[in-house]
């Protein structure tokens, strides 16, 4: 027990030392030198394990400086060599030793490059290397794993890499490129040949049909750095990997849980490896092939795993071929209707089309009515037409046979003596149920228990006129409800769409307005009596007119906020005008609604216009037609001294920009000049340009005369 205690206490003390090194890597050299004698090959197994592990950890530690590691390897290499060449080897020790050697190899390699005189160190390393390579094929899987990694590291060192900065050798990646051609210890050509041989051994795992997932994934996860940094061998590695089929194990039939894990593992690792390559360097020459392979892998995944997900096929022979209930029902039995027994037959017998006793014995009346109601319709829908015809023809045949035979009385009895017949008739299967329902009215004068025939909803009572009107109004209001609730801004965004827009194609406010307007103007055109003058809408005739109603609502809609809804008014009036045109084309004396509507709208607006309102000018310039009546309304504005300028400006605008109505506008101005005292000054300015003779014939005022030349000049500039 003393030995036990001492071993344990030794290890706990070693652990203390290890913690010290972990907390500050400065202590590593001293500690490694210190523990070297304790953990040597002669030590107890657990001490050796601890030692090997500690060395592996030391050489892996990123905290421990590289230069120190190199110095330390003079002491560590003999220990590792002893571990690896010992007679009684423990796998744990060997595994950790291989790991330590893997980390140490690049350091020793570089050390040897720059100090070719240090033969011992390299010889130790070379001995370790050959020892590791020797055990590669026979070692336990865990050790083999680490050997794989060692080989990968050796290949990485012994193939040429890229020298990024020749001036700073310590910054460069350690590779064959650093080795001078005439190096006495490590001739580059030999090393490279060795590396290529090792590469073949490394890649062997992909050709192994056994498909050891552990080795495959370990290799895949380690060769990535070779593909990235060693151009000379990257293609070879990639080609091997791309020809590797991770689903190989899946093809051998059923997979147990382990195989599934291994196949999935290899597939996903391969995928991760390829994706990583393409992600790091999307422009590499193999990127296309890699992407293709990834797609193929997805396909193969489906192929490999689908078969396992499928149900097994139905057996060719039923398990119990003799039991009819176990037999697959491939088709409904053909109507092998049993022949009727000789002599009198009951109604039930007449309609019985099956030989199956259980079906015959089934009492339909046990099914509750609500259930029957639910069953019957789907059943009728699913009836096979051929079967039905067949069944009907069989029954017909029977009836004919019966009536042809001497037992006509029997059938007569069967048909009229409903009581008995019906009771028996209920013993029928679902097919017969339908037949019975067909036969029911014939056989009995009782009302059918199950209502048949189409159900017709009674006609609603005719609507009263006021109802029609109310509903119509409600409908119109709902359309405008849509106008109100749909998007506010949509109306003013329309110009962006240009000519490609189709009116009312999108359900914004504009669309709804268009629909409303067209409902008013187009739908009922020509249907209503053309003589009815509904355009002023105020008459409120007895008959409801959709168009009138919509126009009324539109009118109110526009007027309730005419400054913002002037656009709606314009498009409405345009539609009206267009519609009038279309009507007058077919019916020359058809009354137009445009003129009345535009006047009504303007009348609604005029009281609210103030002296500087631009709405009037916009309205007048954009409505499709301007007539004398309209101008008359505008002229009347001039009665109000505050709005004289508004009236004159509006008409002046028309004069300037609406040539077709220029003449009547100038007439209107002339009228203003003659008849409206307040408008005289303003209209004179315009008339001075367009019709100066008017000014001349009347008694001109001096003020106006003076103003004339400069106003005229201004006007010309403006024009």
């Amino acid at each position, binding site marked *: 027990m003393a*030995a036990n205690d001492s071993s344990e206490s030794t290890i706990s003390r070693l*652990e203390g030392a290890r913690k010290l090194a972990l907390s500050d890597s400065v202590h590593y050299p001293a500690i490694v030198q210190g523990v070297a004698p304790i953990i040597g090959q002669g030590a107890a197994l*657990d001490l050796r394990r601890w030692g090997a*592990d500690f060395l592996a950890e030391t050489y892996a530690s990123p905290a421990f400086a590289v230069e120190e590691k190199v110095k330390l390897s003079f002491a560590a290499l003999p220990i590792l060599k002893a571990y690896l060449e010992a007679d009684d080897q423990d796998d744990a020790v060997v595994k950790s030793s291989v790991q330590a050697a893997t980390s140490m190899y690049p350091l020793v390699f570089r050390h040897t490059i720059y100090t070719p005189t240090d033969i011992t160190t390299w010889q130790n390393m070379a001995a370790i290397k050959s020892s590791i390579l020797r055990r590669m094929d026979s070692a336990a899987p865990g050790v083999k794993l680490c050997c794989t990694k060692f080989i990968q590291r050796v290949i990485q060192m012994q193939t040429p890499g890229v020298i990024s900065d020749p001036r700073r050798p310590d910054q460069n990646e350690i590779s064959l490129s650093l080795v001078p051609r005439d190096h006495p210890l490590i001739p580059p050509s030999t090393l490279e040949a060795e590396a290529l041989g090792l590469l073949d051994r490394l890649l062997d795992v992909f050709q192994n049909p056994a498909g050891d997932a552990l080795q495959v994934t370990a290799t895949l996860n380690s060769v990535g750095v070779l593909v990235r940094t060693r151009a000379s061998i990257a293609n070879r590695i990639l080609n091997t990997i791309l020809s590797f089929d991770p689903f190989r194990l899946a093809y051998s039939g059923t997979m147990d*849980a382990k195989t599934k894990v291994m196949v999935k593992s290899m597939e996903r690792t391969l995928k991760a490896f390829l994706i990583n390559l393409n992600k790091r360097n999307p422009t590499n020459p193999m990127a296309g092939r890699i992407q293709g392979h990834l797609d193929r892998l997805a396909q193969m995944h489906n192929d490999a795993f689908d078969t396992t997900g499928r149900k097994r096929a139905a057996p060719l022979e039923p398990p119990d071929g003799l039991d009819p209930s176990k037999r697959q029902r491939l088709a409904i039995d053909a109507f092998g209707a049993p022949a009727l027994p000789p002599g009198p037959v009951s109604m039930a017998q007449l309609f019985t089309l099956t030989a199956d006793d259980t079906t015959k014995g089934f009492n339909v009346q046990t099914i509750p009515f609500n259930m029957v109601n639910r069953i019957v319709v789907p059943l009728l829908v699913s009836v096979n037409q051929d079967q039905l015809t067949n069944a009907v023809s069989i029954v017909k045949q029977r009836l004919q046979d019966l009536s042809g035979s001497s037992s006509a009385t029997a059938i007569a009895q069967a048909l009229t003596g409903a009581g008995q017949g019906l009771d028996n008739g209920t013993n029928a299967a679902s097919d017969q149920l339908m037949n019975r329902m067909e036969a029911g009215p014939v056989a009995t004068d009782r009302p059918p228990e199950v209502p048949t025939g189409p159900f017709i909803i009674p006609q609603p009572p005719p609507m009263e006129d006021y109802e029609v009107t109310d509903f119509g109004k409600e409908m119109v209001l709902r359309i405008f409800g849509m106008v109100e609730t749909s998007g506010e801004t949509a109306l003013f965004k329309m110009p962006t769409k240009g000519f490609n827009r189709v009116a009312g194609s999108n359900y914004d406010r504009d669309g709804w307005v268009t629909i409303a307007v067209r409902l008013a103007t187009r739908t009922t055109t020509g249907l209503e009596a053309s003589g009815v003058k509904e355009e002023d809408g105020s008459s409120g005739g007895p008959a409801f007119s959709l168009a009138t109603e919509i126009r009324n609502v539109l009118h109110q809609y526009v007027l309730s906020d005419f400054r913002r809804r002037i656009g709606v008014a314009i498009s409405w009036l345009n539609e009206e005008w267009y519609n009038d045109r279309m009507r007058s084309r077919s019916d020359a004396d058809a009354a137009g609604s445009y003129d009345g509507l535009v006047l009504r709208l303007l009348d609604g607006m005029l009281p609210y216009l103030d002296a500087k309102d631009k709405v009037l000018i916009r309205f007048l310039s954009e409505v499709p037609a301007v007539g004398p009546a309209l101008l008359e309304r505008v002229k009347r504005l001039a009665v109000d001294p505050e709005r004289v300028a508004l009236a004159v400006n509006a008409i002046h605008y028309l004069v300037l920009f609406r040539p077709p109505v220029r003449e009547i506008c100038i007439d209107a101005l002339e009228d203003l000049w003659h008849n409206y005292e307040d408008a005289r000054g303003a209209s004179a300015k315009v008339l001075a340009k367009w019709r100066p003779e008017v000014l001349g014939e009347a008694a001109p005022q001096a003020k106006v005369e003076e103003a004339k030349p400069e106003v005229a000049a201004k006007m010309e500039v403006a024009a």
Partner: protein
Amino acid sequence: MSTDPRLARARQAAASATPPPPPPPATGVPDTTTQPIALDGANDAKDADVSPPESFKLRFCTVCASNNNRSMEGHLRLSAANYPVISFGTGSLVRLPGPSISQPNVYNFNTSSYETMYNELDSKDPRLYRANGILNMLERNKGIKWGPERFQDWKVGAPRIPKHESDQGSRGSEAGTVDVIITCEERCWDAVVDDLLNRGSPLNRPVHVFNVDIKDSHEEALVGGKAIVDLADNLNNAANAERVAHGSEGWNATSGLGRQSFDSRVPDILGEWQERWPQFPALWTLAWL
């Protein structure tokens, strides 16, 4: 005040399992130099070392997206079972649910502690974050370690002793290396494998990377935590069995790699485990640290 009952349990377990303090650091540098002489005598006895094989522990690492829910549940369970364990997240940021799905609470990895997250969320809307379990979760996490760490920023092999010494599961994971990584989502597994490929395996150390697909909810995390411990137990038993089978006993220290055929048994173990836990689809690969 409501506390996570699991937290109390874990604390208890941790308290009861707290190992005796390591040997006093009196064995400083001068001591180590004198040790060889003192220990020479001990080398005479090479065998008859009997100590429970359970003393050997694999080192674990749990990984999820934010290092908050699933990986921390795994961390807690594994450390309660006395495994050396560390944990990480693979996301770009720590994301915790906020008042709506588009307003997550976002924190930086490595620099924000569970404590600050807890205090901040507690001041924001204690009712909400208590109701959705976030505060309870953070309270649990506070007791496990300082704050969420990002896997991609993990310096593998860098000693964790001074900074993470008080973390649960720190005993045995001082060297900053692990034997097994368990991720909780395929995305994280992909990220981990990809990151390890990018690192180019500077340590030359094999590591088994598992994925156990756990949904990101408190309930699933609880069940998933159990499943992770089950997997860990099975792996550790296998590793121990190999050590014993190869004639080695007496090993009560924390490190060691003597589990040669253990590696090749991993697919078997995972296959059996998957049959026990079919609801957590598993994935595995052998990568290098």
